[in-house]
């Protein structure tokens, strides 16, 4: 069947949909809107940034800045799309565009439409727009300007509610039915309820589940893989629920990282900071908490923190639901404890107690929008000067996100002291035998990971440990 979406108020219907055609190619080569650029086709440069609006469930429209290069066409069904061409009206640049043009914000200009769309998202209150400008554009690479004139322009443009944007009613009218289709013999589905999803998975237990497509997108654009049956998860309403209670957070598997950011920051500021540095805004606005777990990557930034906090994972299938400690889900490299016909439904993260001492560190070559060489999370309970429990997990150190059991043993029951942390730091070498790869050598990973323990102790003593908290010395 067809999919329909709104582009500048006009309904666009596509009758036969290739489920892994990208929105970028469709916009550029079918709609001939060539302002949206391909810089990398892997979600790392932001030159293809577009804005997508969807009904937020409470009568409004929620906008997100997304990388069109790894957004699949079916994900547009029932949504509104804005490209850079949407902004100029009656031959006039919009205020953001005008400010950027006057401010020398472009040199070669190739990345510019992507920056315009990220900052336009900020102007209309898209997901993540409360972040500082530098965070909003962390996923937009510019090789010419050095960013100053772009950041300056961003600060000059106020929030601009745009009354011409489509309403939730218009979107609801657009796509009354969930989309599905067949393309060259391959089936795809975009269910809207857990019930429908359960049934589809029972019928197609080997179907490829696609949530934000920030990982699977690259299988298509880079590995040129052909996906057989595909089930798109982004419209399954129940999976998008996030509930915050005194006990903790229950995060639907389809909740995007940017949507969970504030609630996670309330669990602990280190978790908030980790989420801020999780890829960049366009990716966090697409990638889901469940997807980051389900793909089983050893370098995903979510699992170590969630394991340390004691998260529980719930999976569901026709057989019903089952839950497990998150760490048990990761069996081996590329192998997770997910049965055929099963999907990740939700994650529960308990709220840290008053006696918790928590520290999280993401170490990467670049501070923003990079993949971790090492990502460490430490959650201790400390009572009367003694560490009563210790949960420590690392990413980048093994074939899966993994708990550091020797390190935990060195801490549990021991006094909360420098000596204990030093012993724990040294115990890490018994827990991990990391690889040397493009992101770091074995020796670096071991040293840096053990220093995460030492930094935690120093931070607990009030020592400044983060370069991000430093300001220049004024003479």
């Amino acid at each position, binding site marked *: 069947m067809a999919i329909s979406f709104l582009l500048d108020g006009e309904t666009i219907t596509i009758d036969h949909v290739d489920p892994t055609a990208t929105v970028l190619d469709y916009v550029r*080569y079918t709609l*001939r*809107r*060539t*302002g949206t650029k391909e*810089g*990398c*086709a*892997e979600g*790392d*440069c932001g030159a293809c940034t577009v804005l997508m609006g969807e009904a937020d469930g409470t009568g409004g429209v929620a906008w997100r800045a997304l990388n069109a290069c790894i957004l699949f066409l079916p994900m547009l069904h029932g949504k509104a799309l804005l490209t850079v*061409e949407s902004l100029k009206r009656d031959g006039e*640049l919009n205020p953001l565009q*005008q400010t950027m*043009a*006057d401010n*020398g914000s*472009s*040199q*070669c*200009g*190739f*990345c*510019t*439409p992507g920056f*315009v769309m990220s900052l336009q998202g900020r102007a209309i209150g898209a997901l993540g727009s409360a972040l500082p*400008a*530098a*965070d909003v554009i*962390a996923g937009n690479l*510019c*090789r010419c*300007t*050095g*960013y*100053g004139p772009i*950041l300056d322009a961003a600060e000059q443009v106020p929030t601009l509610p745009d009354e011409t944007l489509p309403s939730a009613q218009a979107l609801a009218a657009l796509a009354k039915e969930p989309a599905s289709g067949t393309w060259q013999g391959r089936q795809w589905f975009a269910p809207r309820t857990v019930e429908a999803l359960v049934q589809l998975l029972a019928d197609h237990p080997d179907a490829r589940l696609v949530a934000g497509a920030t990982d699977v997108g690259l299988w298509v654009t880079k590995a*040129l893989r052909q996906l057989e049956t595909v089930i798109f998860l982004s419209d399954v309403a129940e999976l998008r629920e996030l509930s915050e209670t005194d006990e903790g957070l229950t995060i639907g598997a389809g909740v995007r990282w940017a949507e969970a950011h504030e609630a996670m920051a309330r669990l602990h500021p280190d978790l908030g900071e980790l989420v801020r540095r999780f890829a960049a805004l366009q990716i966090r606005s697409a990638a889901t908490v469940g997807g980051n777990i389900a793909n089983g990557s050893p370098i995903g930034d979510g699992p170590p923190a969630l394991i340390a906090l004691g998260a529980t994972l719930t999976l569901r299938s026709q057989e019903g639901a089952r839950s497990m400690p998150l760490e048990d889900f990761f069996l081996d490299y590329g192998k997770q404890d997910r049965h055929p016909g099963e999907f990740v439904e939700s994650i529960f993260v308990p709220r840290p107690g008053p006696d918790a001492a928590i520290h999280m560190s993401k*170490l990467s*070559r*670049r*501070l*923003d929008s990079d*993949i971790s060489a090492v990502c460490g999370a430490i959650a201790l309970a400390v009572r009367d000067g003694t560490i009563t429990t210790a949960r420590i997990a690392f990413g980048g150190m093994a074939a899966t996100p993994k708990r550091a059991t020797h390190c935990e043993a060195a801490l549990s029951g021991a006094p909360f002291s420098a000596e204990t942390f030093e012993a724990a730091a040294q115990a890490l070498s018994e827990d991990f035998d990391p690889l040397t790869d*493009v992101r770091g050598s074995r020796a*670096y990973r071991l*040293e*840096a990971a053990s*220093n*995460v323990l*030492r*930094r935690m102790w*120093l931070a607990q003593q009030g*020592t*400044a440990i983060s*370069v991000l908290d*430093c300001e*220049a*010395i004024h*003479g």
Partner: protein
Amino acid sequence: MAERDPGWNVLEKPAKPHDSAALHVSGEARYADDLPEPRDLLHLAFGLSTEARARIVDMDLAEVRAFDGVVAVYTAADIPGVNDVSPMAHDDPLLADGEVIYHGQAVFLVAATSRDAARRAARLGRIEYEPITPLLSLDQAREAGSEIEPVQRMVRGDAASALADAPHRLEGRVAMGGQDHFYLEGQVSIATPLEDGQIHLVSSTQHPSEVQHLVAHMLGLVSADVTIEVRRMGGAFGGKETQAALFAAACALVAAKTGRPAKFRCDRDDDMVLTGKRHEFEIGYDVGFDEEGRIVGLDLALASRCGASVDLSPAINDRAMFHADNCYYLPDVVIVSERLKTNTVSATAFRGFGGPQGMLAIERIIDDIAASLGRDPIEVRIANLYGDEGRDVTPYEMQVTDNIAPDMIARLRETARYDERARKIAQFNETSPVLKRGIALTPVKFGISFTSTHLNQAGALVHLYADGSIQLNHGGTEMGQGVYVKVAQVVADVFAVPLSQVRITATRTDKVPNTSATAASSGADLNGMAAHRAAMTIRERLVQFLAEEFSCDAGEILFTPDGVHVGSEMLTLGEAARRAHIGQISLSATGYYATPDIAYDRVAHKGRPFYYFAYGAAVSEVVVDTLTGEHKVLAVDILHDVGRSLNPAIDRGQIEGGFVQGQGWLTTEELVWDDKGRLLTHSPATYKIPTASDRPKRLTIDLWDGENVQPTINRSKAVGEPPFMLAISVFSAIGRAIAAIQPDSRAYPPLEAPATPEKILAAIAGHRSS
């Protein structure tokens, strides 16, 4: 004349943004892939080598040919003319012929009806290789005697004796990595076959003339049969000087053989694997100096990894030698430069063109000397600056006549409050066990001109239409640096018309022939002067015509913003042009310029390779986490010399952009190859250029208020490359921050570039054990 034409008031006008700014922000600026696609267009992809060095035993391309949508598959045997896309040495085949010399080299070419089909089919080639042990590292190449040209020496005086007699002496080494250009627009070209064997190419290239000549040779045509057009590039930075030819030639081959238009838009990962990068260097030094840190003798060894072919490596390594002095007088000196040939993608031009590597060498030497004497490095820098007679000649025997570095350093030291901050940083470091700060001031002196003297020429073509509108064309290509707007400003000023009256047109080889690459920061200098001459030719014709027509003196004819004064009459430029046209006066002219006064003897490495120097200085403050190796650049103050700026807004953009790009080279941008010669960092997921938050939160840029001592266009100075090297201050500051872990040590931390967290931790460990 160009020197100080009274009609020019560029500096008095408000700084103009980029001529395409409105099109950039609206998405309407067209890049090659944005042009409407012609009917029957074919899309191309290369089959890439999976070996770094091997003999090709057999190629089975049957599956490639059978793939749905594939129209043609070509190998070296299908090339009608010369199988070469190299700039000078004829050693870069379009398609591998019998052997492969680096991993990822183009082996065969697929043309298909869709991009997807071409790319999928390109992965189906079955090629049988007989591998040969590749030479990957500098050491392996050196041991095998593998070099792209013999070792070069630049010698003055007797370094050995000076070293033997020196009061102090130090030896050291530093390695620095290469850099990927990461232009946001990847390599792209579109060929359209024309009648009678001619061909038209849109190419994202800095060097249309070279692409034209290579395509002609490759197809067995003459240059007049081939036209190259480029309106703009989405970034280039040197990466489209020689590297664009590969993709253009592939399109031309397909267009010529199939008679159909052909487009090659390279995938980002393939682009990073297939195209050259900045040269990786290893530096070794033996330096002698006095109590003040003043260098008395230097034996400097530069070794670079040039990759699998010559490309521009001779000139790039020469430029490294030319900049190993930076702003400092080196009395007795020998600079030895090894240019090693390896089985890695050929290293190529990149902003600075070897200059950054040479300059980083001498700045490290200065830092090392300062550490060994326990002095602030700024004092050692000042002690070594070029000076008056006796201390004003470079190792290649060019006299430094415009030495503003001492004054610039003094001013920046003051405005950036260097001394006060250095003191406060020392206090901070005493009480901060994990975080250590560092501050450094480093200067830049960069030689302006192509060192191959004959390249310093340019042409322009200006049309004045009878309605008063002006069309401008020249050999410079626009890659974001603003050469189009600068040259258009020059032409607008000649006629005293608003910039909007000058239509800037795409660079085309059929309008201005035999051009040099837009490179070496020379675009505005050369093309601005050529366009000025073209415009002046037309203006002089108008003056002569109007003087006769109105029976007045030529001196009574003035071009002003209000119009053309002719005696007591006033005409618009359109009216003047219309009258001249009716009077049968030609309103079209070419202009030509060649840089005067430069000459260089490459055999002896002596002469005057540069017309002038551009200067700058920067103070950077950084903080380093000594437990993780992370760092942050906290504040940067820049003072830079652009002479009498043609366009301060554009120049500031070049300075900031160059600085941040240099910061990337020295900090986050690490190229990693494996032991098979495969590039592992072939995507932005693994290769990390700076993001917005890497830009220092505090960044000030001041322009030096001088003018060029040479009569360049408006007495301006080139600005493309020099600011890149201001970022050496960041690297130097990181070194000092690391040194603060042992404030009493007289050793300098063994920090290598890029200063990734891993390299910083290694330098900390090395410093602790020194």
